[in-house]
């Protein structure tokens, strides 16, 4: 594992009465693509702005490469930001925009020209030097914003929902661009988004946040397959979250049926949340499943069908490539390994929320 480059220590930040971050602790490793993920108002952008130097925390320290940079203004930090709305300088040409940081550092004209060419090539916009900002599309402007940041060779690139204003296809293309850029540059990316698909696609590490608290830190696979609580499970992808009782080790009771699972150590007759991903639910013959139900809706989603099954009073969400008809009587089965057992939330921050993002 590479070394820890950035360390947030006990960061607290409030705007008026609204506590945005409450005693946040987080480290970021060198050359890592880390994503802060969460719904609006979860504190992810504030965390990024504290790292960029645009906000000062009420309490706590930001350690960068061993030095305390909490009070350092943005222009003295060795990192650069790509803003959500691009924030290009409208009165300058593309070349002047990219050269802005280098001119302040008093680099030679040859060095700057070289860097502009290199950066434009890197973001696939060769020959755009003389163009004006107005003549570019949103995606092109965002690439210029990235070029303008990376020519300064920052140790860390901060990206504040940089794809938020782009359309779906462009957003997907830019995700691959960003992964390629990160690999070519070999620097740390700190990425803020509310889009779980973006986070899963690009990140080495995902930090899921809600209401100022970190809910879970882990690789995309860990976050998706082993969410620690109902909030994470619900925010990252679709899931069936069912109230259950852990009867004993390896046996959980949901909706009046005892089913085998692989989890241990929860004790006896303990209330738990049971999370089952829709793609892990298998539709079988009524007599083969651990539960029987009726299909209430079938929606074609392209890659799969999204099916809802009403069984024992619970509306199961199922993803399958097989076509079923509405009204069919079927059985439900999930292999023990795909049943995720979680403790009941201790605070309301960890509860599943409606995420219409």
């Amino acid at each position, binding site marked *: 594992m590479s070394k820890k480059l950035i360390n947030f220590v006990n960061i607290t930040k409030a705007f008026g009465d609204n506590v945005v971050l409450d005693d946040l602790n987080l480290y970021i490793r060198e050359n890592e693509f880390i994503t802060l993920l969460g719904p609006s108002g979860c504190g992810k952008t504030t965390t990024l702005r504290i790292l960029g130097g645009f906000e000062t925390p009420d309490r706590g320290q930001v350690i960068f490469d061993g030095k305390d940079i909490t009070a350092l203004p943005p222009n003295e930090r060795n990192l650069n930001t790509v803003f959500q*709305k691009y*924030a*290009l300088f409208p*009165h300058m040409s593309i070349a002047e925009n990219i050269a802005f940081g280098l001119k302040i550092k008093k680099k030679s004209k040859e060095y700057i020209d070289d860097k502009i060419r290199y950066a434009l090539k890197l973001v696939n916009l060769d020959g755009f030097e003389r163009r004006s900002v107005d003549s570019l599309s949103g995606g092109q402007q965002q690439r210029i914003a990235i070029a303008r940041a990376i020519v*300064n060779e920052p140790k860390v690139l901060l990206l504040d929902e940089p794809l938020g204003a782009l359309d779906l296809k462009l957003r997907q293309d830019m995700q691959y661009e960003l992964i390629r850029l990160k690999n070519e540059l070999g620097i740390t990316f700190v990425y803020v988004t509310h889009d779980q698909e973006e986070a899963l696609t690009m990140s080495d590490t995902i930090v899921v946040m809600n209401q100022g608290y970190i809910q879970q830190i882990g690789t995309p696979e860990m976050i998706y397959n082993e969410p620690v609580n109902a909030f994470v499970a619900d925010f990252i992808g679709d899931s069936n979250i069912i109230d259950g009782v852990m009867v004993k080790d390896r046996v959980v009771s949901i909706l009046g049926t005892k089913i085998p699972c692989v989890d241990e150590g929860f004790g006896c007759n303990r209330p738990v949340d049971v999370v089952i991903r829709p793609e892990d639910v298998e539709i079988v013959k009524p007599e083969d499943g651990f539960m029987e139900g009726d299909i209430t809706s079938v929606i074609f989603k392209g890659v799969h069908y999204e099916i809802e099954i009403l069984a024992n009073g619970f509306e199961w969400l199922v993803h399958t490539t097989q076509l079923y008809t509405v009204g069919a009587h079927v059985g439900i089965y999930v292999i023990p390994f795909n049943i995720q057992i979680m403790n009941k939330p201790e605070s309301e921050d960890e509860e599943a929320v409606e995420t219409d993002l």
Partner: protein
Amino acid sequence: MYRLKRQFLAGPYLLWVAGFILLPLAFILYYAFTTDGGGFTLSQITAIADPVHVKSLLLSLKLGFFCTVVCLLLAYPLCLILSRFHFRHQSFVVFLFILPMWMNFMLRILAWRLLLSNSGLINSLFELVGIGRVKMLNTQLSVVFGMVYDFLPFMVLPIYNSMARINKDVVEAAKDLGANSLTVLVKIVIPLTLSGIISGIIMVFVPALTSFVISDLLGGGKVLLIGNVIEQEFMQGMNWHLGSGLSVVLMVFVIASMALLNIFDKDGGGAAVW
């Protein structure tokens, strides 16, 4: 048909323009190029070369220039402060600076005449603290002071508006790229408010150049601007031909100064005052 109806809505305004702007302008032009007998002449125009008129025109340019510079130096830092700090009653503070515009122009100038006079409030204060009475009224300084007081809001408004339009992200991006506060001001804020600055300069310089009431009341007839000369030709000399000729020359100076400023205004924001 619908288009035609909509165009009729401009009718009252067009009548106004024709009757009260174009027609008088035609009269001025007619008088400016004719003699008493009605014959064509350029002598009313060339009369500007008369040393008295040259002196007045130069004085007008000089005082107008100083007035504009002082207004700019007062307004710009004020707008920076107003736009940077987002306090609760920001628009109220802007309103306070605009408030004098709501009072009658003559009333304001007459008030300053009383305040600045030798036996006025300010001189009484000076005497009280031991400075002694200073002659302030009827000087070039008092005229510039009156102009600044009157025209400052015309500088504040366009600059404040252009500054309020600057995207906060752009300033943060500049800082992020290593710019300190001074660099942000010089490379980002001033270029992006240039159209506001130019609008402000035109809106202050043009009325200052053509002003005659302020110099009359605060200059006491001792500060003779080109506006005063023209007024005297019309009102006292009853020489409409000479008055019109000098007006046309002054108009040329106004248009020339606006055209000159427009060269610097690349994005055309200042064109609004044309």
